[in-house]
């Protein structure tokens, strides 16, 4: 490392690092550790037993199903939105970006509420749905809708800056070599954005599986039917089944850790890429 004369003394550095690490340890690391520690309070056997209840298994299945529907939807949307926004110029573009970001600034509970107001028993379309024997609120479609809303901006938000930076040269080169639109997208654009896309998918997926507030409002908490993993954690916790609650929670925490590791690896790869680029 290059020797820097203009910086803090070694002592100050160590003190500052220590304070920062202590803060992170207390506020971030300790909660994470406590999840696993509480989950294993009754030993491995207790942990496995808590996961293997039919309600827990059905919550896991539902959570995977929700993510499997909502993440691909947002991937398609995210790619379409960032293609439209970064490859063309049209008026109102920054307004469009702001609107895409809108779900970020809405409380999760409110996100759930708006779908209750639309599709709930007393909602705008409630009567029509009841007449046709369709159920959205307190059923899986409602959970999907709320999740899609909550995770709406994730993929687009990762791709827009990336594609903006990459410009249109590669696509124009492909077209000048005779490629059509789809060929250009598959062979040139998609490989260029794959890591950014994966990054967005990871974050989108983590949020989709972990969303609590919005899903809580629309789900109805029907055990074995409309309970996702985070909701199941709440139910178990409120029933004082702490081992069970933390066992399911530890699965979600494990997902978070996997996400973080993958994210770090991707960030490292990104640097590698931008370094090799010029």
């Amino acid at each position: 490392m290059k020797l820097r004369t203009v910086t803090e003394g070694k002592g100050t550095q160590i003190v500052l690092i220590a304070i920062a690490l202590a803060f992170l340890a207390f506020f971030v690391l300790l909660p994470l550790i406590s999840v696993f520690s509480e989950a294993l309070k009754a030993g491995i056997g207790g942990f496995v037993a808590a996961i293997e209840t039919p309600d827990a298994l059905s919550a896991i299945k539902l959570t995977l199903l929700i993510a499997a529907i909502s993440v691909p939807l947002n991937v398609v949307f995210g790619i379409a939105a960032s293609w439209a926004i970064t490859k063309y110029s049209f008026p109102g573009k920054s307004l469009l970006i702001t609107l895409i970001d809108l779900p970020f600034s809405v409380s999760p509970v409110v996100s759930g509420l708006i779908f209750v107001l639309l599709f709930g028993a007393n909602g705008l379309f409630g009567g029509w749905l009841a007449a046709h024997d369709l159920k959205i609120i307190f059923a899986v479609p409602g959970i999907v809708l709320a999740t899609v809303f909550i995770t709406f901006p994730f993929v687009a938000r990762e791709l827009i800056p990336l594609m903006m930076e990459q410009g249109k040269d590669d696509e124009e080169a492909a077209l000048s070599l005779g490629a059509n639109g789809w060929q250009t997208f598959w062979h040139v654009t998609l490989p260029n954005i794959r890591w950014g896309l994966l990054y967005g998918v990871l974050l989108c997926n983590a949020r989709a599986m972990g969303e609590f507030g919005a899903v809580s409002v629309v789900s109805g908490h029907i055990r074995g039917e409309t309970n996702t993993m985070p909701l199941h954690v709440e139910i178990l916790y409120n029933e004082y089944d702490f081992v069970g609650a933390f066992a399911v929670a530890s699965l979600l925490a494990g997902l978070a850790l996997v996400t973080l590791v993958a994210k770090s690896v991707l960030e490292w790869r990104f640097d590698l890429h931008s370094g090799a680029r010029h």
Partner: protein
Amino acid sequence: MIKVQNITKRFGDFPALHGIDLEIQDGEFVALLGPSGSGKTTLLRIIAGLEFQDTGEVFFNGNDVSRLKVADRQVGFVFQQYALFRHMTVAENVAFGLTVKKRRERPSKAAIRERADELLRLVQLDGLGKRYPGQLSGGQRQRVALARALAIEPKLLLLDEPFGALDAKVRKDLRRWLRDLHKQMGLTSIFVTHDQEEALELADRVVVMDHGKIEQVGTPEEIYMNPQTPFVSHFVGETNRVAGEGGEVHFRPHDVDVVEEGGELVLVDNVFRKGGAWRVEGMLVETDLLVEFDVDAALPQPAAGDRLRIVPRRSRLFNPA
């Protein structure tokens, strides 16, 4: 033959091109020369089909291609930053144009590989086909971009600032090499540059552009020796501009004689060696205007504070427009 007729183009409020007419013969090597914002790149992109003109037509061999897509115009385009596909190997990059052809027009895999190897040999990169663009030097990337553009067997090769991103030494080598390649392959080529030296050295004909208009079209010799407008005179080569009777007088520093009597009196300010001559910077005593001129290095070096009398050997008078 390429014919461009009455092309205009605006970007919002900014008029990028107005009323461009240009004809380029088969086999010609043409430079579009101008400062940034002169519209030269826009014109190149319109010829390629990467940009749309607002009015006017582009003809290839008498056919109006104005409404033909870039993919259907069969032009080779070399981008300023090369736009190589980073995730493909060099060979895959070169072969791209062949692999995206419709199935019935597409050569076999073996034929494509063969052709890519051939092109890499042509650009002297044989053996580097398995590398990725990120592992090449700037000059090598440039040649990959060229090979890729040539793979679709274009009749017309368009290059946007082809040497802009390279350092001086590599630039000089590549220039000569490109010139040879152009001849050898019987191409018609148009390249954009802001570097007058590059344009004069490389091109059969130079199109000097400024503010979206063509200022002059001619051979390098004509452009340099016979600039038709004050802009060309000033932009191409070094030029002194002094006020004269009935307009502005332009003359080159090497077109100046030092005389014993008559002429204009110059107060020498600074002298340095430039090639085989002394370059003198000084001020016209009468008008306080700065001038530069060359004095044969066989003569004694003038010194600051000297007074010399000069007469332009050749000069051009431009009337105030």
